[in-house]
């Protein structure tokens, strides 16, 4: 056995297919074939190198009030070739929808059409300033107006506020509108009701609107208990925040009854619309008694998640709330489109500096126009079909949390792993070895060791069958007691399991120069 340059021994390894032992050699570079090591940009570049050419400026007198920056900033620059390589290499450590099934429940990781990317980059959309004279952005305003028309038509709601920047921002917008409406009628209420299964943003939002959050229980079948809800409803309740379809992937069967009860109590019904993908074109929230609901354009309408954002969270409003919608909004006047951005009105105010996520509006409208009314309904049906196909195909080997069909996502819990020593986390990491992004784990909180699988409509039957084969295989391995497959997983990923505890205990949140480091 030889030693490599770092002095580590190279070791034999077994060939995966034959079990035969073969040597594997550590490289001198640290790279391994197409898996290429890549340090931080700070370890590669210097503050003296740059990957841009900038016009040389002759000396001139500065007018910065004597406040020139005269200490080192510390940001390194790389020549362009090295920048391309750095980020190409980094990208190859990621999993994305473009690589395979990404069944992350509650996130609707559907195909992101490249047409949308192209459209958003048209200079007429991508290269216009939010404060240009309105006469020079009529096309943009028309697009926003057209998008609003699609959204209100699909949701059956009279109005929409486009500006919220993501789902959580939309929730803020919606609950604020509710509070504004209540205050306008002099009604100071204190409580927002949320089911236990609610996404974390729901209670957090309610808190940021100055409300106390009270939990409402679920029925055996995973839906909100309308009776319990009715009991909790009184004149201190400002709003009820319900996700529908809910985070267990189920449609709230008593939704209209619930809505009526909410309204009867003088409260408002905020619907978390993160799961709208299951029902778009199939049923309109406006027909169900909803007062406010956000859409996640980055889920339902295919704008890319981009590793965490940006998103866009338009909020639709009922007649009771629409006058409290935020500014700015677009109106169509005699001389063309206008923006209302100020003035005396009942609007809850401004939620963001400009008009919201134009880049996402373009992509979402591109998606809507492409699908049309027929394709949108078909997409919802296919999303639900794929999820139920997973549920039906895995029900015998995994433990479905609830009886009966689901909507766009199938919820399992960890009962099938009982006594195997395998946890939901282990199971998820083994899915990585299978070439899949894990499903959502440990959410919703209402079942133990939750596994929430949302395939979306853009997966083929071939992909679903292959995925199901893996899931079945893993489930039977777990039951067979082959715990090794799980506890060390992932084996095939570029990194082994990462230590989150260590990260939180001694947080290192930025690079510091070796000499400056303690």
């Amino acid at each position: 056995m030889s030693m490599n340059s770092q002095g580590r021994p190279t070791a034999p390894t077994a060939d995966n297919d034959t079990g035969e032992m073969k040597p594997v050699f550590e490289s001198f570079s640290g790279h391994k074939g197409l898996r290429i090591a890549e340090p931080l940009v700070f370890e590669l570049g210097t503050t003296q190198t740059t990957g841009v050419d900038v016009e040389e400026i002759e000396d001139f007198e500065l007018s910065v009030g004597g406040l020139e920056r005269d200490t080192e900033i510390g940001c390194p620059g790389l020549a362009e070739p090295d920048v391309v390589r750095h980020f190409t290499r980094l990208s190859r450590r990621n999993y994305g929808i473009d690589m395979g099934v990404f069944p992350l429940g509650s996130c609707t990781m559907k195909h992101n059409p490249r047409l949308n990317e192209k459209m958003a980059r048209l200079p007429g959309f991508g290269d216009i300033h939010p404060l240009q004279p309105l006469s020079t952005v009529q096309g943009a305003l028309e697009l926003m107006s057209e998008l609003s028309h699609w959204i209100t038509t699909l949701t059956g709601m009279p109005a929409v506020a486009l500006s919220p920047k993501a789902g959580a921002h939309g929730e803020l917008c919606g609950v604020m509108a509710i509070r504004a409406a209540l205050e306008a009628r002099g009604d100071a209420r204190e409580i927002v009701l949320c089911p236990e299964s609610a996404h974390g943003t729901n209670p957090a939002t309610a808190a940021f609107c100055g409300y106390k959050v009270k939990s409402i229980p679920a029925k055996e079948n995973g839906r909100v208990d309308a009776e319990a809800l009715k009991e909790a409803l009184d004149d201190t309740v400002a709003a009820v925040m319900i996700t529908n379809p809910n985070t267990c992937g189920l449609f709230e069967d008593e939704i209209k009854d619930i809505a009526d009860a909410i309204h009867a109590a003088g409260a408002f019904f905020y619907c978390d619309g993160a799961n709208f993908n299951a029902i778009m074109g199939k049923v309109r929230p406006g027909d169900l008694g909803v007062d406010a609901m956000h859409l996640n354009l980055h889920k339902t309408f295919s704008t890319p998640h981009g590793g965490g954002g940006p998103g866009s969270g338009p909020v639709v409003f009922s007649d009771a709330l629409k006058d409290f919608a935020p500014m700015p909004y677009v109106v169509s006047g005699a001389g063309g489109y206008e923006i209302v951005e100020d003035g005396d009105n009942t609007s809850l105010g401004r939620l963001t500096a400009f008009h919201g996520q134009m880049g996402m509006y373009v992509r979402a409208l591109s998606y809507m126009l492409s699908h049309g009314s027929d394709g949108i309904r078909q997409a919802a049906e296919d999303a639900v079909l794929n999820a139920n196909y997973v549920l039906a195909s895995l029900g015998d080997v995994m433990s479905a949390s609830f009886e009966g069909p689901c909507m766009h996502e199938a919820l399992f819990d960890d009962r099938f792993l009982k006594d195997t020593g395998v946890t939901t986390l282990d199971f998820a990491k083994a899915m990585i070895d299978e070439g899949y992004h894990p499903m959502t784990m440990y959410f919703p909180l209402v079942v133990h060791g939750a596994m929430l699988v949302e395939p979306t409509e853009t997966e083929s039957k071939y992909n679903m069958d292959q995925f199901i084969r893996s899931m079945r295989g893993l489930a039977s391995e777990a039951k067979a007691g082959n715990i090794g497959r799980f506890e060390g997983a992932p084996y095939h990923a570029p990194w082994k399991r990462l230590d989150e505890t260590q990260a939180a205990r001694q947080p290192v949140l930025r690079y510091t120069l070796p000499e400056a480091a303690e």
Partner: protein
Amino acid sequence: MRYLPLTNDDRQAMLAKIGVRHVDDLFRDVPKADLNPDIDLPRHQSEMMVERQLSKLAAKNTSAGSVPFFVGAGAYKHHVPATVDHMIQRGEFLTAYTPYQPEIAQGTLQYLFEFQTMVAQLTGMDVANASMYDGSTATAEAVMMARRVTRKKKAVLAGGLHAHYRSVVETTTQFTDDVIESQMPMPSDPEAELQVAINAIDDTTSCVVVQNPTVNGSVLDLTAIADKAHAHKALLIVVVTEVMSLGLIKSPGEMGADIVVGEGQSIGNGLNFGGPYLGLFATNQKYVRQMPGRLCGKTTDSEGKEGFVLTLSTREQHIRREKATSNICTNSGLCSLAFTVHMSLLGEKGLRQTALVNHKRATDVKNALAGIDGVEVLNSSFFNEFTVKLPTAAAPIVDKLAADGVLAGVPMSRLYPGGGFDDLLILAATETVSDDDIEILAAKLKEALS
């Protein structure tokens, strides 16, 4: 439908496996009467037709690159290298989710770690988070964080804070415990404007929020206000709406800021009619656990290999729920990648050079306009933006120039309607402005004023 892989045969086979006859059997919980409503919208269309329809809308707008362009006030037209857009379109970046599974998300996590470091370096602070929606929402978050840190309520918003930022803070905190004291800009006297803010700081103050450069473009020395704030155990929050300025101007950290928030659009990101943009949020080590937003931190894997994970998530909504430091979930991930790529190209050297060109261009514009009768430049200091007083209302002049193919800036009345600033115009000039552009602007403005 080109995006839907299931065929009718597939659908039939899958329904059979599920054990239902029709897909609507899966929607049985939906009230029958409400299922499958008429949706009065057009049917699906080919890619070509969609492209045409959207291109037609786009063509109705005047893009910044097609005309002499001087619009700023919180969003800036810079040259973004082609490499940036290429990198952010890599499918592995574009179509990834928040890196909750770090073993297959090290690409995202590493650039977030790089991004956090860069933002910290630029702002002169210890740590930065992995982004917020935009500069304005980051400002609101900072105000609320200052309340948590100081357990005090009064936030003073200095007059130089962008009108829209101020509105966002007011809106966002209207139902929280924060008490906002907003001041008006004093375009011709930034020192006095700052003094008003200094004077407003007292022992009940949680924070004072100062924009630098101000909405009118003036560059401020913040050491005095920092001292005053700290003397009253209040935090100094500095807002930077033009991050490019940090390549030329002393960092907020160096001047005593406790929290720096900013709009990162200028680096790596296009104008996009206002969004998506990139909220920057930086603070000092001791406040980390009160920060909103995601944080990426270093760790090791089970074999000791260094890697990154999202960390300190006990601050966040998905763990802390109603006790979270913010309700933010989705942030501006891909915009932060664009920022990181562009910054990796620029480096300190390129950033400083570019910032200097910005200042030179603005100086050139200022000189060109100063020569026009009746036009008065109000700024004595500025980075790439300044305010002029016209002999007449600015908005109609801007409209006139727009009709003439010049986008001449932002009338201050657009930001402060009824604020008494009707004759003021805010102009920005970046490295994209050419000598020709300046000449055309000066000529057309002169013409419009005469």
